[in-house]
């Protein structure tokens, strides 16, 4: 019997495979072990361990960095589902630390302050899987080329405004559909325009989907928001501030999980939407001055 975990192809299958297991599920931002347990009890498929949810990062300002290892370990001990944690864009040592802490997934995230305005982390250099944000197909394919095992469309984190999440998933799905209509000779030009490798572009054109799982993030605050993202072709949703910045986090968490599974059943979504108390107050993305738009971080 041979165990060949050290082969790069094997690692890729294990890491993209874990994302496949999360499909149809909800990944929730949590800042304490208690919140992590609430998320697990509500049916979350994974939690994102953070010191501050994006809405607070936005409100408090300053440089946002990787969370304290004590906090991350406390959350790992609290739950049986996978635990993710965020590293700054390009901060490969934060990523090394998170791998040493044995998190299940690293999110190289624009929600934190970027550490490198030119390069992203070389994710092939790690055994732990990465999820990365994208606002369009070219960005998604560049992250996959760098080794991302999962993509999340960015949306605009910490706003509770779903309009950017909508724009990004529509953009990515639309660009994929557009590739499907192109002939091989046109795909060379498409690869150039997408600033992504030709072989990967051709694969996406042929399959009609990314080669990894794609979740939606950034502004999902209600069961209907989550179900809409699923109807638009998302494999699952990240909910950040939307749960623990709302009036009744337990109930809202359960409701968003239910609506994500039964995304094509309006009666179920209606049932899940009843009596949830107040949603997070939120910020209209249109009112955000450009320097405060997190989605523009990443290159």
């Amino acid at each position: 019997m041979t165990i060949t975990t050290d082969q790069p192809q094997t690692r890729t299958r294990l890491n993209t495979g874990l994302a496949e297991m999360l499909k149809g599920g909800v990944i929730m931002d949590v800042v304490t072990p208690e919140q992590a347990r609430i998320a697990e009890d509500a049916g979350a498929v994974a939690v994102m361990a953070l010191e501050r949810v994006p809405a607070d990062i936005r409100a408090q300002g300053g440089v946002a960095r990787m969370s304290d290892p004590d906090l991350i370990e406390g959350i790992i001990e609290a739950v049986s589902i996978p635990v993710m944690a965020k590293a700054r864009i390009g901060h490969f040592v934060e990523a090394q630390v998170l791998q040493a802490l044995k998190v299940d997934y690293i999110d190289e995230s624009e929600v934190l302050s970027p550490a490198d305005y030119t390069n992203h982390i070389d994710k092939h250099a790690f055994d732990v899987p990465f999820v990365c944000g994208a606002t369009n197909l070219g960005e998604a394919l560049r992250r996959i080329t760098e080794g991302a095992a999962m993509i999340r469309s960015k949306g605009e984190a910490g706003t509770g405004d779903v309009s950017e999440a909508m724009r990004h998933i529509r953009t990515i799905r639309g660009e994929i559909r557009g590739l499907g209509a192109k002939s091989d000779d046109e795909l060379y030009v498409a690869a150039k325009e997408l600033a992504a490798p030709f072989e990967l572009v051709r694969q996406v054109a042929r399959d009609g989907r990314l080669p990894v799982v794609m979740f939606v993030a950034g502004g999902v605050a209600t069961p209907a928001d989550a179900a809409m993202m699923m109807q638009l072709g998302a494999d699952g949703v990240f909910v950040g501030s939307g749960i623990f910045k709302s009036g009744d986090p337990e109930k809202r968490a359960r409701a968003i999980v239910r609506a994500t599974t039964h995304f094509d059943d309006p009666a179920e979504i209606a049932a899940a939407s009843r009596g949830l108390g107040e949603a997070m107050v939120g910020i209209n993305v249109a009112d955000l001055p450009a320097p405060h738009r997190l989605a523009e971080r990443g290159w």
Partner: protein
Amino acid sequence: MTAPLVGVLALQGAVREHVRALEAAGAGTRLVRRPADLDGLDALVMPGGESTAIARLARHDGLLPRVRTQVDGGMPVFGTCAGLILLADKVQDADALAGLDTVGGLRITARRNGFGSQLDSFEADLAVDGMEGPLRAVFIRAPQIVAAGDGVEVLAAHGDRPVLVRQGGILAATFHPELTDDTRLHGMLVEMARDRVA
């Protein structure tokens, strides 16, 4: 001979991959989200995912106890990873599943996430009873079978632990056959479904 109709429990997890593998193995498929979706199935796959999430999603309408009724009535079922946990009669460290209905019926004790974090996920080639050539197995945050009771046939082991078992019409794996192109285990389920129809 018409193709048997195999359901795939589709609350959460690796649903698409099982559908593809079953169709490659000659079955028709149906996604199962509610009890009524179980009517008329010749077999069922319970896919990998997060067992806590799946059990919670199923509790609104008693879907998992209904699966048990049909399994007791002879419907073949194949559980992989989280699906195996939901089929197990006993689960160690089951706090996160406390108060939730599962399916049960498979006389094993399972331990959720028995190997550690994602860094401890691995692949291995398995020798399977009655199967020619090795079977590539993908173990992702996999459960362990820590004890197997009477009537549980161990079809494959990894080290000293069973990883593929069969008890009558229940087939269960701690790994993910749906993530490789090898559809022999799905073929085994399809044969079990055909035998039952015949």
